[in-house]
């Protein structure tokens, strides 16, 4: 049934420099005839929308409600990111938020307040098409009940400018897993698309084993990647690891966006999973977002680190602390 993977096409992708995503094997041919013209017609027929240039932004891991030494400035980096996105020209036509929108709370009602605050902050975004997936801090303690009240379903799919987007939930069961039911749903969803369709999956945890002893993996990530394997143009965006990362598996490119609260160290060299200490001189150091654009037939993924020059130094940090307490 499923066609064996075409290694020749894969090699074409792997020959590109890192940072170039997998939309590329379709897009260059878009101008010409052949299969791409068929695909373009197919998308127009199915969705009333053909493959057209797009730009989007990925935000991740704001942890609204988090308080602690790794970042005493609360939501300031998140708010800064919103300003950065609002300053983009052209505006992104889509914003993807890859989980841990909020930090969990034990007190009843407090988690809902944090979700409310998250929504108040994101309502400042000029670009109104914002799509979400949950992180474990949003949805793992109550299996996504509260999250659904605020943000809707935890997994879904949609088409945008000729790209098929798939939101996957690998947190709400409590375990780092997608689960059989969702994988069956994914297979049914994918079956409607031609092998050449450009696909962007967004999820919270890495779908490959990045650092299992730091819980940087998904138990059934291989099942997801196998379901996606027949498709030739797959990009996966995720968060959870609080740092930028680019990784290639046989069938897909994986990009992690920085966090908006604190960073984790390099998993290849660090022993323990401990947040990178807060730097008063550069309060938003290592924090940021990803900006993605289709440029000349390629998917460019830009890792953007936030800067906050106007708030640098001890005095600057005092300015952004609401309470003005010393660090």
């Amino acid at each position, binding site marked *: 049934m499923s066609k064996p993977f075409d290694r020749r096409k894969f090699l074409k992708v792997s020959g590109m420099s890192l940072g170039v995503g997998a939309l590329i094997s379709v897009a260059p041919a878009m101008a010409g005839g052949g299969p791409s013209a068929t695909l373009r017609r197919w998308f127009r027929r199915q969705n009333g929308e053909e493959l057209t240039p797009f730009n989007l932004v990925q935000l991740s891991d704001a942890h609204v409600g988090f308080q602690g030494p790794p970042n005493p400035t609360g939501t300031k980096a998140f708010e800064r990111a919103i300003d950065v996105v609002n300053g983009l020209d052209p505006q992104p036509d889509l914003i993807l938020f890859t989980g841990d929108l909020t930090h969990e709370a*034990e007190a009843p009602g407090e988690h809902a307040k944090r979700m409310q605050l998250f929504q108040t902050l994101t309502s400042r975004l000029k670009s109104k098409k914002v799509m979400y997936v949950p992180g*474990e801090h949003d949805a793992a*303690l109550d299996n996504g009940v509260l999250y659904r009240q605020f943000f809707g379903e935890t997994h879904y799919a949609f088409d945008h400018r000729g790209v098929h987007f798939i939101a996957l939930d690998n947190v709400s069961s*409590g*375990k*780092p897993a997608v689960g059989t039911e969702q994988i069956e749903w994914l297979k049914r969803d994918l079956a409607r698309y031609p092998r050449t369709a450009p696909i962007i999956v967004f999820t919270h945890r890495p779908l490959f084993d990045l650092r*299992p*002893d730091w*819980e940087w993996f998904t*138990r059934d990530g291989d099942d997801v990647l196998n379901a996606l394997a027949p498709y030739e143009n797959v990009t996966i965006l995720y968060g959870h690891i609080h740092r930028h990362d680019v990784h290639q598996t046989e069938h897909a490119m994986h990009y992690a966006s920085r966090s908006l609260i604190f960073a984790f160290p390099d998993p290849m060299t660090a022993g323990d999973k401990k947040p990178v200490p807060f730097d008063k001189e550069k309060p938003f150091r290592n924090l940021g977002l990803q900006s993605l654009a289709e440029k000349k037939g390629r998917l460019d993924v830009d890792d953007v680190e936030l800067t906050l020059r106007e708030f640098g130094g001890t005095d600057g940090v005092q300015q952004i602390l609401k309470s003005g307490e010393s660090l």
Partner: protein
Amino acid sequence: MKRIFFTLLSVVILGTAQETQPRVVTISAKRFEFTPSQITLKRGEPVTLRVSAEDRDHGFYQKDLKLELDLSPDHVAEATITPEKTGRFVAICDHFCGSGHGNMKMIINVE
């Protein structure tokens, strides 16, 4: 007659099991720690890890040792493994259990 047959059968099964029964190590999990926090196993020696959860669901995961258990207070989960290489392995709780979840782990030494 039937009953006698089953009794005989269970004696046989128990008897066989006892001869080859691996050493049992019990571990308990609660927010946000495993007790004991460290165990030592022998390379090449089969061992059964019997892991219970005291307060809520937890996970017990160690990739290299092929440990992947779902823990819940209403049953004791167990896995029998034969460690093939020596080293220090970090087993984690991989079922999100609250604020200290990210540091819920224990060490499995294999000598």
